[in-house]
């Protein structure tokens, strides 16, 4: 543990209380540091106490930087993470105004002078683009819903990577070191079934796993998938279909909106990847027949499957996000994956697709 000194911050920033609350908490608990490489960039996460590390650290474990860094190596992003219950810290103030028209509960959004903040889903995310620093707080690490801790800090990563033109998209990704596919689709389309099937069959196929719900995409100089989370979310029917994954599930499902979380590395060490070149976009569709088929899809259909669910789950949408996603689907072939009932065929179909590209 260590308690490094914070960098210089603007004294009159509206969010300074958030920073002060974290530092007060850190002074009490000490700081646990972890370094990760996310989208090829060095990120330092500073946890006040162990509770939040225990809760969300596993989602990033496959991206942890284990090699010794030069002593002067500076992260491009520092994220300060804490909760109130485990540390006794005061809850931070809400920044900004309440957004109207969202059905998912109270949302407060703040943007000023290079600082963005959002209070949503009972967590607070703050990102200072000038300082390269962020804060992530939850009231109680133990009470975070699985949905939240499987894909934590999405907004911070969205804001941070968006500045470099890297898009966080709603989709899963599987592949091999030489290339893989982005799996996109609306809820119920079979997106998670596809990625979880590939995880389930990885021992036999050699496919690697970059995520099941949110990944980051670079479109230049060539399409590339960056993994954000080494987790997967399973609904109860997934547990029935992929019983092998059950042993790696980290939590029981606690309610109708809750999902079980599986960490890919706990299921099969080495199966996760930090990323790969993106060779194709795949849009799954439940076909209701035995065999799985891969058929060409229009680029418009792929964009329609990718863009709306991406844009509506991130706030604010990156101004060039739609154009970026259109650029992506223009650069790679797009396919419909007609999902059959023989689940083993799903991963072998993707392997066959990759071999033919």
């Amino acid at each position: 543990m260590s308690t490094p000194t914070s960098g210089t911050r603007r004294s009159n920033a509206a969010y300074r209380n958030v920073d002060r609350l974290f530092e007060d908490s850190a002074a009490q608990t000490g700081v646990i540091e972890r370094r990760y490489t996310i989208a090829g960039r060095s990120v330092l996460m500073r946890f006040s106490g162990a509770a939040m590390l225990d809760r969300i650290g596993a989602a990033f474990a496959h991206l942890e930087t284990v090699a010794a860094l030069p002593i002067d190596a500076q992260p491009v992003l520092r994220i300060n993470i804490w909760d109130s219950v485990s540390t006794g810290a005061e809850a931070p103030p809400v920044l900004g105004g309440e957004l109207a028209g969202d059905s998912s509960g109270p949302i407060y959004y703040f943007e000023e002078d290079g600082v963005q903040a959002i209070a949503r889903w009972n967590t607070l995310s703050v990102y200072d683009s000038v300082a390269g620093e962020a804060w992530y707080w939850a009231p109680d690490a133990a009470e975070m819903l699985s949905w939240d801790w499987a894909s934590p800090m999405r907004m911070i990563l969205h804001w941070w990577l968006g500045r470099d033109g890297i898009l966080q998209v709603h989709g899963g990704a599987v592949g091999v070191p030489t290339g893989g596919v982005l799996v996109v689709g609306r809820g119920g389309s079979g997106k998670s079934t596809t990625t979880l099937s590939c995880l389930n069959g990885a021992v036999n196929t050699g496919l690697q796993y970059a995520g099941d719900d949110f990944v980051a995409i670079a479109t230049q100089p060539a399409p590339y998938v960056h993994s954000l989370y080494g987790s997967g979310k399973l609904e109860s029917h997934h547990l029935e279909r992929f019983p092998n994954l059950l042993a790696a599930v980290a939590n029981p499902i606690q309610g109708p909106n809750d999902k079980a979380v599986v960490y890919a590395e706990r299921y099969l060490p080495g199966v996760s990847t930090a990323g790969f070149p993106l060779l194709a976009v795949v849009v799954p569709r439940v076909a209701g027949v035995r065999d799985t088929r891969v058929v060409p899809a229009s680029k418009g259909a792929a964009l329609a499957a990718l863009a709306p669910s991406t844009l509506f789950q991130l706030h604010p949408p990156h101004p060039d996000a739609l154009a970026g996603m259109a650029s992506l689907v223009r650069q790679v072939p797009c396919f419909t994956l007609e999902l059959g009932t023989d689940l083993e065929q799903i991963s072998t179909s993707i392997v066959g697709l990759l071999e033919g590209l």
Partner: protein
Amino acid sequence: MVDAIHKCTYVETRDVRFLHAFQKLIDHEAGTRMQRYVTNPQAIHETIDGETIIIDLSTGTYFSLLGAAPTIWNALAAGATTGELIAAVEQAYATDAVDVGSDVESFLRMLEGDQLIATTSDDGAASAADSASGAAKRLPYVQPKLEKYTDMQDIIMLDPVHEVDSRGWPHAAEAQAS
């Protein structure tokens, strides 16, 4: 003689009325053809391989435009008048024996109904139809089609709603520091 004069006057009067009515129709038609529109600034759009995807960020609704619709939409976004929209479609598609004007008008009403466009009196935009290539081979005409999807609201509602906890967070930012 009186009858003849009366008849001539009647015919003349009837013709004048007809001409006035015809002129009014022409003026109305010309006015309609000169109508311009503005696209909803919250509706972001991309056209790819002959299909346009429009996403209305203000409502959570998205649309797929098929057939001749992308040609119309892109001309609309470039500031075309109704007449220019019709010309753009006739230039891009083989529209013999097709009432393009009626199709374009119907499509415009659909776009207005979904608040994707609104009429404007601003006539400062450049002609979009002029930019189309007259030498390009015309495609088989397919009526403009607008498909509407509202399932994103369902996805958003799937997000778990966290209750405000006993400490009342998010709370009013009385400590929002000055």
